[in-house]
């Protein structure tokens, strides 16, 4: 049943990984992604893989999983072996979970998705339901097998991906930033699932994460990949953090025991003027299903406001409604009188041009906002559409490039930027038109430490200059550092349908 040329018969249990001077250069690039890496991971060990972004960690994991492709996709130097054989011949021995929860979902029902790996490996059809049930239990995903995968939350999707991998009974479990795109609850769920799964199966574990405090106590060993090649460190966590902790923090890793060096702003004064206010507000995405009703909202001017609450509570919908992008389902959002446009004080009635200079919005996915082919042009779009003279546009753009450390990327295509750079660019495009109100949807999502610090510092300077900031966020530290007034959406009220 599992007989094939690509899988050694009868191997099970944890697998060891050896690298000897291994390197990989993607075809079409000049510099190798990974260079001269050597280590031996014993079966059953738990390893945390760290390094600056661009150091090649994901490439290393892809190499261990045997997914880098053939000779036409790049050049390999040295050797990388799983259980003493090349990874491409070990399909099913190595399981990989990716960062993006949506990318790992293959089929539309939970049970089918988990069974996918077993089907590919030729497991007998009669054995598959048992394996699926076992895997779902191992990750604690308590949903019926017929549930639609698209209805799952981020944390559930990641656990589903993990279950799909565990159903193959792999010897190595590779996780590439599994919690980067999750809210705190999802992070906890996934962490618990991984711990349970590894304890039961004893598989070798290799995790890439910049949120080390979540994983540090589960790991036996930390390997730090150097950006210039080779390994910067390799040893028990305590020792590695003590030795290269500062370098790691500078590279964006959340190293335990190194607090953030930013001031904490005083809490906002809420009885002053408000930039935006609404009473009896109902918000909805499509005017038919009401997400939240009966909201009383005040956004104090010149200070930070945070919109918090669990998944599905309607935080993004509220933020977009306050920003004038979604029409209110009931009630009215009114802006302060000095912000009024030609049609009055309701942002949802303003034209796009009026909105540009009054309320800036930073979307959760920066790429939804990109319009141009270079970073420079991207920043120039707002000022140009306002009719600003070219020379002045250049001044504005240069200033922003400096302020947000994007100067070396001025001519790059926005889509080629890293996650942190894209976020900075999307914030910069909003700042180019100096709106008095800025609305951000999950600004620190998926950010490493460096990106986080830069963003919060930027928001603090904006608040100091008198800008009103509204942020949807799960991250309590952000709100604390901004001295934010909170709008708590609490538990979601059962949604009604508009009459």
């Amino acid at each position, binding site marked *: 049943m599992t007989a094939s040329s690509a*899988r050694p018969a009868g191997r099970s249990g944890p697998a060891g990984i050896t690298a000897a001077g291994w390197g990989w250069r993607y075809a079409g690039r000049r510099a190798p992604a990974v260079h001269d890496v050597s280590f031996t991971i014993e079966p059953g060990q738990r390893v945390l893989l760290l390094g600056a972004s661009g150091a090649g960690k994901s490439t290393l994991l892809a190499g261990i999983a045997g997914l880098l492709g053939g000779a036409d996709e790049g050049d390999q130097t040295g050797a990388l072996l799983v259980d003493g054989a090349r990874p491409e011949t070990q399909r099913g021995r190595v399981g*990989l979970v990716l960062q993006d929860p949506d*990318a790992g979902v293959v089929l539309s029902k939970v049970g089918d998705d988990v069974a996918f790996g077993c089907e590919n490996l030729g497991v007998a*059809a009669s054995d598959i339901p048992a394996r699926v049930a076992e895997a779902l239990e191992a990750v604690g995903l308590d949903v019926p097998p017929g549930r639609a995968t698209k209805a799952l939350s981020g944390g559930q999707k990641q656990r589903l991906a993990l279950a799909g*991998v565990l159903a193959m009974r792999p010897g190595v479990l590779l996780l590439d930033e599994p919690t980067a795109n999750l809210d705190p609850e999802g992070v906890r769920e996934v962490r618990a699932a991984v711990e349970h799964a590894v304890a039961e199966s004893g598989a070798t574990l290799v995790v890439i994460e910049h949120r080390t405090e979540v994983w540090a106590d589960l790991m036996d060993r930390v390997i730090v990949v150097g950006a210039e090649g080779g390994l910067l460190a390799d040893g028990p966590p305590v020792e590695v953090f003590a030795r290269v902790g500062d370098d790691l923090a500078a590279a964006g890793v959340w190293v335990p025991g190194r607090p953030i060096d930013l001031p904490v702003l005083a809490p906002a004064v809420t009885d002053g003027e408000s930039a935006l206010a609404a009473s009896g507000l109902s918000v909805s995405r499509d005017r038919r299903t009401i997400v939240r009703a009966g909201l009383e909202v005040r956004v104090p001017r010149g200070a930070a406001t945070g919109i918090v609450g669990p998944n599905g509570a309607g935080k993004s919908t509220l933020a977009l409604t306050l*920003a004038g*992008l979604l029409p209110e389902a009931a009630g009215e959002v009114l802006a302060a009188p000095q912000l009024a446009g030609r049609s009055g004080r309701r942002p949802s009635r303003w034209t796009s041009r009026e909105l540009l200079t009054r309320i800036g*919005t930073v979307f959760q996915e920066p790429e939804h906002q990109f319009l141009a082919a270079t970073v420079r042009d991207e920043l120039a779009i707002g000022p140009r*559409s306002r009719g600003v003279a070219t020379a002045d546009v250049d001044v504005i753009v240069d200033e922003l490039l400096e302020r947000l450390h994007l100067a070396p990327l001025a001519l790059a295509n926005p889509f080629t930027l890293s996650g942190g750079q894209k976020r900075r660019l999307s914030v910069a495009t909003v700042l180019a038109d100096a709106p008095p109100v800025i609305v951000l949807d999950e600004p620190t999502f998926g950010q490493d430490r460096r990106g986080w610090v830069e963003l919060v510092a930027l928001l603090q300077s904006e608040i100091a200059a008198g800008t009103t900031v509204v942020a949807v966020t799960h991250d309590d530290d952000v709100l604390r550092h901004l001295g934010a007034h909170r709008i708590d959406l609490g538990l979601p009220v059962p949604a009604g349908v508009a009459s």
Partner: protein
Amino acid sequence: MTAAVADVPAVDTRPAWLDGVNPVTKVVLALLLSVPLFASIDVTSALAAIVLQLACLPLTGLPVRTLLKRMLPIVVFAPVAGVSMLLYAEPGGRVYWSFGYATVSDDSIALAIAVCLRVVALALPTILLFGRTDPTELADALAQVAKLPSRFVLGVLAGTRTLGLFLDDWRSMGLARRARGVGDTGAIRRFFSMAFVLLVFAVRRGTKLATAMEARGFGSGIPRTWARPSRLHPRDAVAVLGGVAIMALAIGAAVAAGTFRFVWS
């Protein structure tokens, strides 16, 4: 709370006769109920096909309301297709009106009506047959029964699941453009810009999905097993015979009424 992707209204969940028919048979039926109609343009065969297929509605398990809702755009569009035929068919019989290249004649009127009915008759099979088909079931059937290469069938199935994500992206991009000051004018330019970003997302998602699938052993050459076996049953033969009967009756009716008109004559 979850926005419906293609706005599918609630479907009757009791099992219908057609649910027991293998999806590959449904594909054969869809072809069977369409291709013969291509041969002739006339009112009788189209009308007979429509009536006979509608008579089979109870077998499909689709509520009448759903059917009407899906038929609406087609019924609205049919006359439009007819107009082109009305004006530009080869003239024949008495000519009523002429302007430039357009000529309205006896022949063109008859053809126009036939075309309207034909549009409806050709659109009906897919609505009736695939209103309740699960894509995964279809893919399983195509790979196991029709013996299409499983790499292609499953790869395409996995890829087509991204449709819902793209709809969300499209909506979000529209809002983002309003926020960036370009939402007032230039709908066509905005359309192309959004379409392009959708392509970027498409390639990226596809690449990531392919990696995830390969990581689960997909495409590795190991002989595959199927957790959801798909087989043919006697009911499939009955369905095919039913389809043949409908077509025979429809075309037979046209021949008997003398209105059968071969397209290329």
